[in-house]
């Protein structure tokens, strides 16, 4: 209903503004109804201004920036109704090392409340996990679970093996 939508929208909006600043280490962002008179049929505009940059349509942002903005949006929505568990499948794929770090820090925070399962190819993300499972095909075409030692990942992290 209209009031419920507007209430939730306002919550997401303030969450998103705060989360964007956290993911980008500054700057500002906002979401606006293109047609505030008709919220239930209105489109939604996203304005994102990374630190030091001008506000541009988000279609002009880079692959990694869009991924960070998506993560901020995902958690902005999540905060209005935290799910007991969340599965993230390679959301860190386009991120550089500094952004993978920020992503992991934000996830670690929410992991105090919800359980996270994260699929990744990034060593930094692996190092941020509490437990690691490997999924591989020792027999071609058939999946099996293997144990992966976090200590191996973390020590290779220390010698600068990054994503």
């Amino acid at each position, binding site marked *: 209903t209209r009031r419920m939508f507007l209430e939730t929208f306002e919550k997401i909006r303030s969450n998103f503004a705060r989360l964007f600043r956290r993911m980008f280490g500054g700057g500002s962002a906002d979401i606006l109804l293109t047609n505030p008179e008709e919220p239930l049929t209105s489109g939604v505009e996203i304005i994102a201004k990374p630190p030091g940059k001008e506000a541009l349509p988000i279609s002009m942002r880079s692959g990694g920036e869009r991924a960070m903005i998506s993560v901020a949006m995902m958690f902005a929505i999540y905060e209005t109704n935290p799910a007991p568990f969340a599965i993230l*499948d390679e959301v860190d794929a386009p991120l550089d090392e500094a952004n993978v770090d920020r992503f992991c820090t934000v996830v670690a925070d929410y992991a105090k409340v919800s359980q996270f399962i994260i699929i990744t190819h990034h060593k930094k993300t692996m190092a941020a996990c509490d437990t690691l499972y490997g999924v591989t095909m020792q027999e071609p075409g058939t999946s099996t679970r293997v144990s992966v030692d976090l200590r191996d990942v973390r020590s290779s992290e220390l010698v600068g093996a990054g994503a």
Partner: protein
Amino acid sequence: MRIVKLEMDGFKSFGRPVSFEFTAPITGVVGPNGCGKSNVVDATRWVLGEMSRKALRAGSSTDVIFSGSATRKPANRAEVSITFDNSCGTLPLSSRTVKITRRLQKNGDSEYLLNDEPAKLRDIKGLIEGTGAGMSAYSIMEQGKMDSLIQSNPDDRRRVFEEAA
């Protein structure tokens, strides 16, 4: 309402039984391309009642049954079980753990089990969705789908917000 365990057998690339225990706050799943990581995500969606074949990257519903490999025959049925820790009483059941099972036979016959007893899909869905006013039972972000949250189409975007409200 934490996940305790996920077990699959005959589902997609899980040609033999595989199980995962999820006890930590953050569990990482890693491995080479094409080895089954996203299939773990599909198994979770499927056992919780996902019907959309597109969401499961399948052409027809029986496509999720292990279709065999060079060294293993196809499976007759797909089965996935997910076990939740219910000690916080989030789910309106008396048991400490809640186990949901979904099974699909090659001929299309489908069944659901709740704590190993036959159950109806709508009861299971009601269980998961009824854990509080519009509570989101789970949050899944699929591989390559993150961009859909910031769709360039303002109407698609509004739909994302509507689902949250």
